[in-house]
């Protein structure tokens, strides 16, 4: 199985700048569309940038390269960051991004397999992604493709879906050590704080008891991401709890779960404030 790659401060600085640009794109896309999921897009941006620009083995010249590590964006509502990353990798045109949520666009609200070749899995119906990730890993094992890794990204509200725990059992039963499930623990879901909607604590212990090697990091720290991957148990499926801030990088979103979606309140003044927060010129 593939091992973590070495990283230095120059690369980390590059990743930070990429994440900033991805956030700028995402906020502009959602504001232009009139709605979307800015809070949970911004919370997972750093992890996604880390995976696509450092951790995963991909071929920039061929997004369907058979030897690529796969990623299932189970929390499909974070698609603006996903699409922006595709644009930075040259897999979609930068010009397409503002079509997000619009008419006749490949930038569908939730990632759809048949729209953009870089998408490995249709998501958006929460709770299914880890099952699919396991299916990919099992099929790769059957085919003798033993070096591939399979990443899944889900939200901490999403794990209220029972199917997630069926999949947690499956990965453990089959010792799918090449499966890495990342939980974007931004502690909020659509309505309010996850713990108030349906308490899942003790969270890490649940996953451990299901047979996963669990690590908890600051999901906005590339240093943490660099340190954690080499420490995983090579025999077990890997659960990375990324502690994140919903709306990370945009001042008024970080403080208010009402920015779970955008809506009419996302006016020009808010956009200007967001761009200022993200160090972007309008």
């Amino acid at each position, binding site marked *: 199985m593939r091992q973590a790659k070495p990283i230095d401060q120059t690369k980390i600085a590059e990743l930070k700048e990429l994440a900033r640009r991805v956030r700028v794109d995402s906020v502009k896309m959602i504001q232009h569309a009139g709605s979307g999921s800015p809070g949970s897009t911004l919370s997972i941006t750093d992890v996604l940038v880390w995976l696509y620009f450092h951790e995963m083995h991909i071929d920039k010249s061929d997004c369907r390269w058979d030897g690529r590590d*796969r990623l*299932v964006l189970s929390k499909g509502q974070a698609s603006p960051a996903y699409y922006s990353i595709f644009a930075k990798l040259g897999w979609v045109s930068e010009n397409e991004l503002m079509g997000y949520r619009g008419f006749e666009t490949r930038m569908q609200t939730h990632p*759809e*397999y*048949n729209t953009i070749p870089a998408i*490995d*899995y*249709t998501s*958006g*119906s929460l709770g*299914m*992604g880890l*099952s*699919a*990730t*396991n*299916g*990919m*890993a*099992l*099929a*790769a094992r*059957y*085919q003798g*493709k033993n070096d591939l890794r399979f990443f899944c990204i889900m939200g901490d509200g999403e794990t209220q879906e*029972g*199917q997630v725990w*069926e*999949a947690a*059992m*499956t990965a453990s*039963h089959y010792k799918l050590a090449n499966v890495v499930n990342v939980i974007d623990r931004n502690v909020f879901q659509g309505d309010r704080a996850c713990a108030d909607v349906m308490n899942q604590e003790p969270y890490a212990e649940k996953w451990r008891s299901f047979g996963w090697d669990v690590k908890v990091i600051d999901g906005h720290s590339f240093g943490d991401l660099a340190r954690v991957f080499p420490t995983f148990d090579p025999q077990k499926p890997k659960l990375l709890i990324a502690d994140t801030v919903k709306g990370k990088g945009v001042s008024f979103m970080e403080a208010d779960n009402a920015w779970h979606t955008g809506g009419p309140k996302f006016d020009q003044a808010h956009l200007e404030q967001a761009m200022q927060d993200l160090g972007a010129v309008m």
Partner: protein
Amino acid sequence: MADTALQYWNVGEDVSVRDAFGRILVHQAEARSDWVLLDADVAGGTGAKPLVTEHPDRVMQFGIAEQNMMAAAGGVADTGLIPVVSTFGAFGCMRAHEQFRTAIAYPERNAKLCCSHIGLDVGPDGATAQMLEDLATMRAIPGVTVVSPADANEFMKAFPAILDHEGPVYMRIGRSPTPVVFGADYEFEIGKATRVRHGSDVTVIATGVMVARALEAAETLAGEGVSVRVVNMATIKPIDVAEVVAAAAETKGIVTAEDHNIFGGLGSAVAECTAQHYPAKIKFVGVDDTFGKSGEHDELPAMFGIDAKAIFTACKKLV
């Protein structure tokens, strides 16, 4: 292909279609390596057990977790390997219906769903296991091919055909012993109906276990001077429009016969077809919008009006 090694059953024998499922799985496992079976701890019930015994490397076991299994099939298909998902109808076509829709059908995955425990044919297991709505639920999903073989031999012909068909397919597996209608030389084609008895007064369009009952009813009606055409509609979707139109145009009316709720299944598909292309009189033989009950597979059809006598009566009303 090792076709010469495949043993078919004799016409007229009573055979459970799930025996055909086990036989063809083992045969196809030896003939090709491009598919795997996904099971949810019901291989003994679906008929897949011989594959589990003889080629365990071809089986992915998911335990009693059908939603997980169905979404995993979407992932399996991502690699180019064909997942053949197998469980009971209620679980595959309802419990995991959304997973089939979103993880398989919508992304147009090359995946197959084969479900046993459909219709009153299930027998003693009763209403929760007697899936009478599968044709309706699966037919409603865009792009899904829906197949309902009439007997063990047709199932064995249909299975390699659905593996070769690119895209999502749902196929029924019968459970109770059912008379074999088709011989070893029968050729199955997706989307093509088969005229199993020629006739000019009325047409029975039947599917699954109802084909043998339709033939029985047609024989009785012949004794009364009524000439009945019997069509085996093995593919419910896409339906063979030409064959339905021919029945509407050339005979006085159509009787549809299915081991399924009269809403949403074969009868509805035929009615949709005639309404658009050639309006015709139709009588629906099927379970009349109710749930099943425990009982033997040869006791329940009379109770619920899906036996040969019910087909006989429906035909008489049209001539």
